[in-house]
């Protein structure tokens, strides 16, 4: 049993949904980013998603795009992202870590090399936005062979006809994108989220977590009623941005700003 599966099993016993937190690796710089993730489990994160910065994140909204550029300007690379995971893993053997990003940096690094290094660093799952099931031979199947979960995005356009293809080679959990559009721009329509989550359950036994546009404890609490987990991303990334002393430079408030927002939303998920 991998860390992700184990974590969802534990939470099921506790009878509550998972809080999945997303921050961009290396935002605003390596050291601050490491402090941020090290403190996330204590603040209430059950699963950690780490964005691998890319110059052209076509599915992300302004907040996450800006975070990626801050990290890249700060010298973040794929190698350094793996190093961050390794350092985090040295102090935390249990919290699942999922890397999320776009295919090009992985492809250029070399798929097999990347998977070997990611596994060794303690990565549990991958979400690669621009790899739909039609491209499973690229990374999905090799990742499964390397014992890393390949987590798929399902969207409001994933209808009953398409769902079987989307879930065929997926594992870990399913990430339901609650709105049509890019990250962090529109608020999810809670009724349609519930309806779609229930619809997708007919196609998969995997836990379904819901993200894109979740910003507050109240939204998180409402989504946690029907889903197995809630992802908070853009809101945390915006908290980093708002806390900066100047562009790209952390202030003494940066780390705390993220952790207190996570604690707040965690209370929503757990209530």
């Amino acid at each position, binding site marked *: 049993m991998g860390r992700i599966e184990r974590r969802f099993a534990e939470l099921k016993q506790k009878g509550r949904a998972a809080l999945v937190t997303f921050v961009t690796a290396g935002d605003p710089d390596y050291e601050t980013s490491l402090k941020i993730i090290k403190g996330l489990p204590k603040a209430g994160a059950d699963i950690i998603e780490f964005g691998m910065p*890319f*110059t*052209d*994140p*076509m*599915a992300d*909204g*302004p907040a996450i*795009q*800006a975070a990626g*550029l801050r990290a*890249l300007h700060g010298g973040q*690379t*794929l*190698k350094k992202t793996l190093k961050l995971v390794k350092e985090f893993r040295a102090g935390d053997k249990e919290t699942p870590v999922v890397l999320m990003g*776009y*295919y*090009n*940096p*992985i*492809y*250029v*690094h070399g798929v097999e090399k990347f998977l070997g290094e990611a596994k060794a660093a303690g990565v549990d799952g991958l979400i690669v*936005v*621009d*790899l*739909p*099931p*039609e*491209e499973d031979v690229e990374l999905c199947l090799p990742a499964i062979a390397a014992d890393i979960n390949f987590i*798929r*995005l*399902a*969207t*409001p*356009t*994933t*209808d009953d006809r*398409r769902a079987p293809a*989307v879930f065929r080679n997926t594992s870990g959990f399913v990430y339901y*994108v609650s709105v*049509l*559009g*890019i990250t962090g*721009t*529109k608020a999810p329509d809670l009724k349609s989220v519930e309806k779609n989550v229930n619809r997708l359950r007919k196609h998969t036994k995997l836990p379904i977590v819901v993200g894109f546009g979740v910003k507050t404890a109240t939204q998180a609490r409402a989504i946690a009623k029907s889903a197995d987990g809630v992802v908070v991303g853009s809101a945390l990334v915006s908290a980093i941005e708002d806390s900066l002393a100047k562009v790209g430079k952390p202030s003494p408030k940066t780390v705390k700003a993220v952790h207190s927002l996570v604690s707040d939303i965690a209370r929503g998920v757990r209530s």
Partner: protein
Amino acid sequence: MTTAQVNSYRTGPDEKGLFGIYGGRFVAETLMPLILELEQAYKDAKADPSFQAELDSFLEHYVGRPSPLYFAERLTEHLGGAKIYFKRDELNHTGAHKINNVMGQILLARRMGKKRIIAETGAGQHGVATATACARFGLECIVYMGSVDIERQKPNVFRMKLLGAEVVPALSGSRTLKDALNEALRDWVANVEDTFYCIGTVAGPHPYPEMVRDFQSVIGVETKRQMLAREGRLPDSLVAAIGGGSNAMGLFHPFLDDKDVEIIGVEAAGLGLRTKKHAASITGGKPGILHGNRTYLLMDDDGQITEGHSISAGLDYPGIGPEHSWLHDMKRVQYVAATDKEALAAFQLCCKLEGIIPALEPSHALAHVMKVAPTKPKDHLMVMNMCGRGDKDIFTVADILGVKL
């Protein structure tokens, strides 16, 4: 990378949208159902003679096709070698080849019942063509354009507005063409129900590279017919400029299986291939994944996309259509590059010798013609695609020549 022999260079892409290892459908899940819907709609339209008949009619009466195949006599005399012909696609309505593809896609969008059209543009030529066709059919038109490009291509921005389009600045990243493409994709993800994305070049997820190529192939089909009528035989060589590569693919594709026809694509070498300031994806890049397809890209060691640079905003893109990448690996097409300086010299020569102000994009092709034509015998027939006119570029050129307008 395969270099195995093939019987035909014209059968791609396969059912997965691949040309060898290039192409594909590297998009977010939200877009997949739309891309599959588009693929089916295009297949149906292609099989429907009434679709092609409607397109042919608009190409003739609205765009002004066929464009002439013109013997550039004075240039030929000046260079003293190959007999040079221009395929005059700069005479099309809106002043470039872009409208060929736009008419096809807009007729397809109408067929699919889509009422809202989005497009990306760099220099503004594809944006103007899209705005034009949308005005003609009464469709809503939104054009994404990098804020840097908006600043340097003001006349085209105003043209699009006159035609009723909304021009939305892309403010992220490098704020040029690649970012305009990102913004258009983001718009599409958010407006999947009613929106048709009209891509301007032979790139993007399958079926765009194939579809745009098919719509642009009218250039090569006409060239073949016109050359046979004129000279009684096929040309010996074809030369075209390449940014994303749609004008080149349109000219090249009908000739790919004519093995004796030498085919040359000219990328933008900017300030030189040894500097980082160029936009030559094949000559100076390596394979990667961006904007829905695998192809040659400009990037750093970490796989981060770098900026292209060219005097010509239309060539200033860090990628190239996937079919070009395949044709390069197969060695069927030779890819070379011309610098800003060489293109500018060609631009000036063409104005003076032929009375044609070329766009800066085909000026790159012309720069290569100037290099190779003198080495060819007088019976060598060379066709260069004059894919756009230079009115839009006079401000850039005046600026470089130090002339205040």
